[in-house]
């Protein structure tokens, strides 16, 4: 174990390697590392931005859905209201029509009844006269008895 010129040789080799490392090794690797760091940071930022945008879009979509639901509800209630109105209207119309029909029918019935009553009245008088004439042919004073019957008929 002697101290000798190896000392100097080692120093020179050492300095040479340090110089080489400083010039050709360290800067490119560090540069690549920095670039990758930047790239990753950019990527993360873009992802963050994307996520944010997605959140916004979701919120917007939610809002659109709510609006659509509201509108649909409104339309449905409007339709219901309109339907009720139509039904009510129809009910009213039907009632009026029915009453009209009922009234005209009543009038017709009355007219018929009157007509029948007139007819009966005239016929009853005739039948009664004929019957009475036949049964009581002889003893009847035409004049007196006609007056009596007239009176009877008028009571019908």
């Amino acid at each position, binding site marked *: *174990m*002697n*101290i*000798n*010129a*190896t*000392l*100097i*040789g*080692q*120093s020179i*080799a*050492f*300095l040479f*390697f*340090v110089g*080489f*490392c*400083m010039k*050709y*090794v*360290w*800067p*490119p*690797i*560090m*540069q*690549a*590392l920095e*670039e*990758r760091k*930047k*790239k990753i940071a950019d990527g993360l930022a873009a992802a963050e931005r994307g996520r944010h945008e997605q959140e916004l879009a979701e919120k917007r979509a939610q809002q659109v859905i709510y609006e659509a639901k509201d509108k649909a509800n409104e339309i449905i209630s409007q339709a219901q209201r309109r339907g009720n109105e139509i039904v009510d209207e129809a009910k009213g119309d039907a009632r009026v029509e029915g009453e009209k029909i009922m009234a005209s029918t009543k009038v017709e019935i009355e007219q018929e009844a009157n007509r029948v009553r007139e007819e009966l009245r005239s016929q009853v008088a005739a039948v009664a006269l004929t019957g009475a004439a036949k049964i009581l042919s002889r003893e009847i004073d035409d004049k007196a008895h006609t007056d009596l019957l007239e009176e009877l008929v008028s009571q019908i």
Partner: protein
Amino acid sequence: MAEELTVSSHIKHHLQNLAFGRKHELVDEQNNLWEPTGSWGFATSSSEAAQMGFWSIHVDTMLMSITLGALMMWYFRSVAKKASAGVPTAMQNFAEWIVEFIDTTVRGSFSGGKTTFVAPLALTIFGWVFLMNLMDLVPVDIIPFLVQHTTAYFVADLSPHEVYFKIVPTTDINAPLGMAITVLLLIIFFSIKIKGVGGFFGELAFQPFGKKMLPFNFALEVVTLLAKPFSLAMRLFGNLYAGEMIFILIAIMYSAGMVIGSLGALLQVGWAIFHILIITLQAFIFMVLTVVYLDMAHQEHH
């Protein structure tokens, strides 16, 4: 001079680097007198390596450390060339994980402005020291054995025992100390760059006791300054050297029969697992302390 393979020669052999320098030969065995032969070559014994003095070089340390450093730089460079902000491949991911870890650590302990120099410095220290330490986990005898026998095969007049090879550069004091000295130079460079020559020497001379105690201050602060890189080198070297030594001692157990040998195998596994922690931790400590020292060099006064 083929020595007999004893425990102590085995250990000694493992602790000797492959030294290249001026060849010496023993001329007077009694007085241990060595003379240079005038030619250059590899030392064939520890004593000869010691005689080579400062102007010799540990070829194994340099070879392993430069190979490992180049391997690391090749890996990171190949990632850097293809680095993109897209989906990373597994290889890119691993490199980015390390780079990010270093970047975070440096930013946590360095407050002196831009990290364009300190961060790559930290990455180089961590990766390189870790890989050099990692060689400690390669079983101690494999690579030296291969190197010895191939060399001895090709070079006729060498016996395997005369070829040395240590594969863990950080267990050679020269490697950590060389790096630590570079760190010291960087500390001085940045101190002067930030605070100026006056500011730097002022810091050394005028504190902690004011101008009257200038020589005392100076002595104290110089010791503080030098202790930083020295402790840096010694901590790394000491940990790895001790770890290596224990691996060598465990390896010796294999030659002591079945029972002790199996015990050795268990110990080897345990120590290797524990050592994974140590080698990573030591690389990390070397890196963090370097960053902290450079941060202190950037600070204006305490």
